[in-house]
């Protein structure tokens, strides 16, 4: 197993980003939107992240895979400004050095579970972030109403979360994240709780929406197919303490069709990634006596 060069700047430069939104963004094309260097995080005696280095350019969709407990959510919490990394780190947003807490309210974040508020209906859940920002409720609702059809939720605005299927709940949560318009979107296993078929549908739909809205996205998943299907780049993390083990540029053309998963390029990417992941998984997966 080889550790690739971790200079993403360079590596990303080679990536096939022909039809990416960021290309239109002439000024910031080469400057990373966000850059982490030497980021570690310790919880008591548990080292969750160690010397992590990540850098994401505007408009990219980067997927992250790694074994359970390797620190993916911790990374997201840092990027969302919810958790401060250990001292000695470098964290740059649009080239400006910042503390993690400065990021609070600056990235839009979708955690592992949908976390919809059961007492709010679809539309009011979607506008939660806008309301907290201080936007008048009526205005926020109007904005969200216009977005409903695109998220496959037209006609469902007055439903409450307990009346929705798992897939629909995820779409409401995604809509809430999209409505909170920020340069960087963090999606932590948004489809982890869905069954495989529903998940496939959601992936295709997400690609559509992403290409229309041109956001920079960091996307955590456990599913290698999903990571390849969606990503411009796939980052494989090591078992705890989490570092980047492998960075794989995905050169599959966009827009991607569903049947791309049986294409040869896809399969060969999958092979490479599976090998890297398998090694890490074995480290953390303990089958005693087996």
């Amino acid at each position, binding site marked *: 197993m080889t550790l690739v060069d971790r200079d993403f700047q360079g590596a990303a430069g080679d990536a096939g980003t022909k039809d990416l939104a960021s290309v239109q963004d002439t000024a910031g094309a080469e400057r990373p939107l966000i850059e982490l260097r030497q980021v570690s995080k310790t919880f008591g005696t548990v080292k969750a992240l160690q010397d992590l280095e990540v850098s994401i350019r505007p408009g990219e969709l980067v997927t992250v895979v790694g074994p*359970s*407990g390797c620190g993916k959510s911790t990374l997201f919490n840092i990027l969302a400004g919810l958790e401060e990394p250990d001292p000695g780190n470098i964290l740059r947003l649009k080239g400006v050095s910042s503390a993690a807490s400065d990021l609070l309210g600056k990235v839009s974040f979708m955690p592992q579970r949908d976390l919809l508020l059961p007492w709010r209906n679809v539309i009011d859940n979607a506008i939660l972030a806008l309301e907290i920002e201080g936007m008048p409720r009526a205005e926020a609702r109007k904005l969200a109403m216009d977005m409903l059809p695109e998220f496959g939720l037209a006609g469902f605005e007055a439903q409450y979360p307990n009346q929705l299927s798992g897939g629909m709940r995820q779409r409401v949560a995604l809509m809430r994240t999209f409505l909170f318009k920020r340069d960087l979107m963090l999606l932590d296993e948004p489809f982890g709780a869905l069954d495989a078929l529903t998940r496939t549908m959601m992936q295709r739909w997400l690609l559509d929406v992403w290409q229309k809205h041109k956001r920079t996205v960091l996307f955590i998943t456990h599913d290698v197919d999903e990571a390849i299907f969606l990503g411009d780049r796939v980052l494989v993390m090591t078992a705890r303490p989490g570092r980047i083990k492998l960075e794989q540029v995905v050169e599959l053309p966009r827009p991607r069709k569903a049947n791309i998963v049986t294409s040869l390029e896809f399969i060969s990417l999958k092979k490479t990634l599976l090998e890297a992941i398998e090694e890490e998984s074995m480290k*953390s*997966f*303990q089958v*005693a006596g087996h």
Partner: protein
Amino acid sequence: MSGTATLAANLPVVSTGRIGVVLRPVLWLLLALVVVEAVVVVFGIRTYYLPRPSVIASTIMATPGAYLAGLWRTFLETALGFVAGSMFGVVMAVVFHRWQTLRELFFPLFIVSQTIPVIAFGAVVVLWFGNTLFAKAVISFYISFLPVTVNTMLGFSAVDPRQVQLMRSFGASDAQILRRLYLPAALPQLFVALKLASSLALVGAIVGEWFGDTTGLGVLLLQAMYNENVAGIWATIVVSACLGMGLYGAVSYAERRIVFWGGEQ
């Protein structure tokens, strides 16, 4: 998923703060008592409004036997009523769970029964059961069984139907399913009710003693009240508080031991 990592995270940690958790409130309480003592003395508050903590303590120490005897008697009544009420409550929950018709016919009346102030018909209980410890236990029983029934039923209804199906697929009988699934599954909810029921049973015993008795905390309370013996009232409150907290603590302890897996499934 790393088995060892999850294990470490979930293993019951022997809390070093445990003693602190008990000690801290006790220290605060002592401090509060000192402050009250000082306030009463400095501002010359009349005993009638608030006796000094030291006066309350010396009231108890003047006739410790009387308070101990009252405590013991009330404890017996409470314990008897509480145990009987809890058992009856669980049995009724099983009956109501098993026979929907019975539930629909009589469960509303169970609720209604609890809206009747027991003090209003305590005399009838004395009429029927005489001036015995048993009569007071009946009153305790009466006001403590319903929460147990309600929560046990709640616990039953929270049982996953798929779990029942699984048991049935093993060929389990209704009795086996009740014993091995429903009853243990209802334990967390049951204990929530038991904690409430223990306090209620104590109220029942004290009120029960207002229907003619020679010993007991309820008797001490009445006597102190009608003789305007404020220090005596306080002394009895303190002893009742100890009994109430003791019962609650005992049930909580049993809960921690028995429902070790926690309420969440």
